[in-house]
């Protein structure tokens, strides 16, 4: 199976530390000569790219003379801020850093697959799973921080004599949330790639461009939806009964 050129570079230079880390965690790599996988390397590339863009932006921030990158950043910030205020409620803005980071990270990961020589890390099951588990932990943490241990009362239903029934139902539906987040992101990206490959094999030249456009649009939409659902879950966890 061919690997990306970046994975080859990482495997050549950093194979030793990667193997040491994996062995220390008890999960040795299947192929000790290539411990770095494509998706891990692309995730790191995306993270570094985002950090570099933010680091370039920071010194150029200016109130009276904004440049192009600052306009783009302001548009993104306003978009996430407006969604957070509308969906999570009045104090949703304190969770804004997580939502913004989630949106930009997933968007960048989805779109980097369009550049030849890289692939979308979200196409492999583990990456959306990690994001979904992180979101699950985050919204429960947000709920417990906001409401203390009375947070558990939301899972017990409206009446105390129904709680024996409501608790298993609520537990299952809470567990279904990371499952659906994972499957939605993974299946959209994976199916997009498969459809694109099928059409490249069928009609070699002009038609696959339409599928690149579709992948672009679906990448935006899926990143937005992941952020939106994270906001809905945080809003549900943090809501006060009035």
């Amino acid at each position, binding site marked *: 199976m061919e690997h990306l050129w970046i994975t080859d570079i990482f495997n050549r230079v950093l194979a030793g530390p990667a193997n040491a880390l994996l062995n220390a965690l008890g999960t040795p790599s299947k192929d000790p000569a290539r411990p770095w996988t494509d998706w891990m390397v692309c995730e790191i590339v995306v993270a570094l790219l985002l950090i570099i863009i933010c680091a370039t932006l920071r010194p150029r921030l200016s109130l009276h003379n904004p440049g192009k990158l600052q306009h783009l950043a302001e548009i993104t910030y306003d978009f996430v801020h407006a*969604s957070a205020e*509308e*969906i999570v409620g009045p104090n949703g803005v304190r969770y804004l850093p997580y939502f913004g980071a989630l949106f930009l990270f997933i968007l960048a990961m989805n779109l980097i697959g369009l550049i030849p020589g890289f692939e979308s890390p979200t196409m492999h099951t583990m990456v959306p799973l990690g994001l979904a588990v992180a979101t699950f932990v985050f919204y429960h943490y947000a709920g417990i921080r906001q409401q203390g241990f009375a947070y558990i009362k939301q899972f017990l239903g409206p009446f105390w004599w129904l709680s024996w029934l409501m608790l298993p139902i609520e537990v299952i539906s809470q567990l279904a949330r990371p499952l*659906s987040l994972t*499957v*939605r992101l*993974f*299946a*959209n990206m994976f*199916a997009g790639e498969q459809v694109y490959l099928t059409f490249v094999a069928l009609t070699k030249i002009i038609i696959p461009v339409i599928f690149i456009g579709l992948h672009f649009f679906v990448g935006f*939409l899926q990143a*937005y*939806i992941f952020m*939106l*659902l994270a906001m*809905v879950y945080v809003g549900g966890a943090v809501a006060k009964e009035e």
Partner: protein
Amino acid sequence: MKNKLVLLVISMLALAGPMLAQGAGAGNPTDANRRAAAYIAMGIASGLCGLGQGRATASAAEAMARNPGAVAAIRVALILGLVLIESLALYTLVITFIAQ
């Protein structure tokens, strides 16, 4: 319409009767049977998902026409609803890949 549906279901159950005449070890699905089931399942899932999304889009468009001031909120609800319905068809796609 309802009588036709009842007739269809009963005839499908009746026509499946000869299946009981199989020998003992005939229950193991072969590769071809697995793939056929996957194709049919994906077709049914996509069709029903299409119906659901059509209804969602239709009511969203009508609501936006009746109340142009609420377009932003309706748009958010529409996108959320469409994606949640889409994810049901995607679960079937994932099962399709697992079954092969």
